[in-house]
């Protein structure tokens, strides 16, 4: 969602600039010209919409969390089940994000730098987690690894619990966050082409050297950007994780699940305290994203200028 927003504002900026340039000659109607009132009205509408549907919920989360004061807020976060939820969420992200970092680079590298049959099929496959509902993603793992599932009886016989335990949560999270890194890298790497790598090879660099010293530095900021998005989703995922979690308090409840449990226990201060942590995470991600964009916008979109 944040992605499309950023793109939209970019688009607006490009559209607004020529319109303003043409206002010198008042008599001529600019090509994209709306009357000043229409423009102001539209801007006001957009701002009102953003305030109502994005800003206000955010404020509500924090005011609800702090309704009973800072003491109750920190008590709610220091509660063992809440701490366990935070720890589990961090651990799941710590496993899922590096995995998707490696998979994402590998997939993007293969797709952008090589030609092979079935390439477009692979691209579609990478996008699959975006288009499949998270609930389905969770149920798929239940069908595969559940007690009545395909591998269930065998897993049971070797005593390894996948569904309703941490491995299932990690699997579901890896599934839903898979496209983030790859999607971020593919367009950039395709645009960069294979020229730099060919030069490095000609100068006698080995494959690994080329990858570490040429390919990786070229994509580092896009990579960081993808990892940020991937991490935000990994920590915030609800649907898929809810299906495979089994809701065991303090053991298989991630932060989003814990928020729901607390809310259903009429404990709204604690629910919103944990929710505010998640919101804070989102804000940090957005800030990091904005910083990366303003500082390294070129490197994110196209090849690094030398």
């Amino acid at each position: 969602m944040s992605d499309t927003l950023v793109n939209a504002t970019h688009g607006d900026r490009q559209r607004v600039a020529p319109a303003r340039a043409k206002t010198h000659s008042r008599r001529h109607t600019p090509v994209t010209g709306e009357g000043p009132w229409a423009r102001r009205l539209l801007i006001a509408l957009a701002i009102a919409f953003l305030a109502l549907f994005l800003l206000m919920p955010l404020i509500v989360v924090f005011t609800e969390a702090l309704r009973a004061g800072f003491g109750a807020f920190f008590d709610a976060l220091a509660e063992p089940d809440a701490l366990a939820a935070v720890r589990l969420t961090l651990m799941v992200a710590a496993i899922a994000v590096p995995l998707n970092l490696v998979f994402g680079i590998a997939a993007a590298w293969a797709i952008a730098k090589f030609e092979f049959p079935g390439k477009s099929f692979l691209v579609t496959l990478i996008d699959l987690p975006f288009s499949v509902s998270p609930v389905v993603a969770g149920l798929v793992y239940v069908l595969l690894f559940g007690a009545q599932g395909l591998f269930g009886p065998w897993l049971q016989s070797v005593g390894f619990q996948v569904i309703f335990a941490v491995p299932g949560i990690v699997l579901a999270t890896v599934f839903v966050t898979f496209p983030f890194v790859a999607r971020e890298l593919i367009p950039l790497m395709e645009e960069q082409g294979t020229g730099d790598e060919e030069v490095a090879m000609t100068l006698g660099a080995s494959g690994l050297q080329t990858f570490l010293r040429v390919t990786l530095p070229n994509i580092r900021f896009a990579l960081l950007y993808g990892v940020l998005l991937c991490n935000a989703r990994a920590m915030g995922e609800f649907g898929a994780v809810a299906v495979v979690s089994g809701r065991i308090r303090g053991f298989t409840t991630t932060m989003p699940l814990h928020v729901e449990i607390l809310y259903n226990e009429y404990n709204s201060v604690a629910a919103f305290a944990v929710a505010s942590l998640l919101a804070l995470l989102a804000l940090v991600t957005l800030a990091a994203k904005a910083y990366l964009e303003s500082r390294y916008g070129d490197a994110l979109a196209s090849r690094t200028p030398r």
Partner: protein
Amino acid sequence: MALIFRRKTVYQILFAASFTFLALLTSYARAQTVLLNVSYDPTRELYRDINKAFLAQRAAEKKPPVVIRDSHGGSGAQARAVIDGLDADVVTLALSADIDAIAQRSQRVAADWQSRLPNKAVPFSSTIVFLVRAGNPKGIKDWDDLAKPGVAVVTPNPKTSGGARWNYLAAWGYAEKKFSGDDAKIRDFVGRIYKNAPVLDSGARGSTVSFAQRGVGDVLIAWENEAYLADIEFGKGKFEIVTPSISIRAETPVAVVDANVDRKGTRDVAEAYLNFLWSDTAQAIAAKNYYRPVKPEAAAASDLARFPKLELLTIDGDFGGWAKAQATHFGDKGIFDQIYQPSR
């Protein structure tokens, strides 16, 4: 251009990351007996108290400590999760049909589970009452008032919620008495109650939140314990509890999940835990949490005095047992499907 990071930094980061990872992993793998109680929605507060008392008793008897974990959700959904492999040691669900489902579909619970514990494996029961808004503006006194036009009734979906099935059967039982068994009239009566329901939540707690927190509807059909709890949670004076003339004894059974405890070697602890539910301590805790104990003599008189006296139907006496009631009323194309058409 140099490497993205200095090599030393990379090693440091890798070392720190793997160390944290191992630390997290070991904190989970600590060897300790863990007992998982998979329960239904409104028992969160009850089992929190019971767990505390059980652990205190074990400590007093100098037995090795255990960790008790709880999982709560709609009774049917929880049974489904156990069938799919949720590693429950004990199940404490809203109705015996859900434990029967586990026994039949996964064979994880022995078929004779109900005869292994006293009182058909039901340590405490509840009943179904109404929760109305302060002052009872719609003047709701009995089931008849729920079937009147213009009354918005909040109840969960009997297809997914155990509590909702008790709600439905209580209404059915009342109608059966009122119309002395005239099937068409009974169906019409119960159908009118469900026509008055603007929304069917999937679980009892969801319905309570709809009614109490979001202000939906005029009357909530609820577990007695849930009604009292909502009354306390949202502050006295916002709601009133109305007890109908006839309701149902909602028996909430418990069972050890044999296959799981035998594999994990936790049978002793699991059985001790369930037996503890019949102890005087646990019975008193149940009464304190608004569940009706099977051993009232163990509970505080002041807690018992809160339960109103009313005529209670039973599932076995009046509906021919859960197997029959489940098939007739809640099966695919059962009576509930016939009388309830969601308004579009």
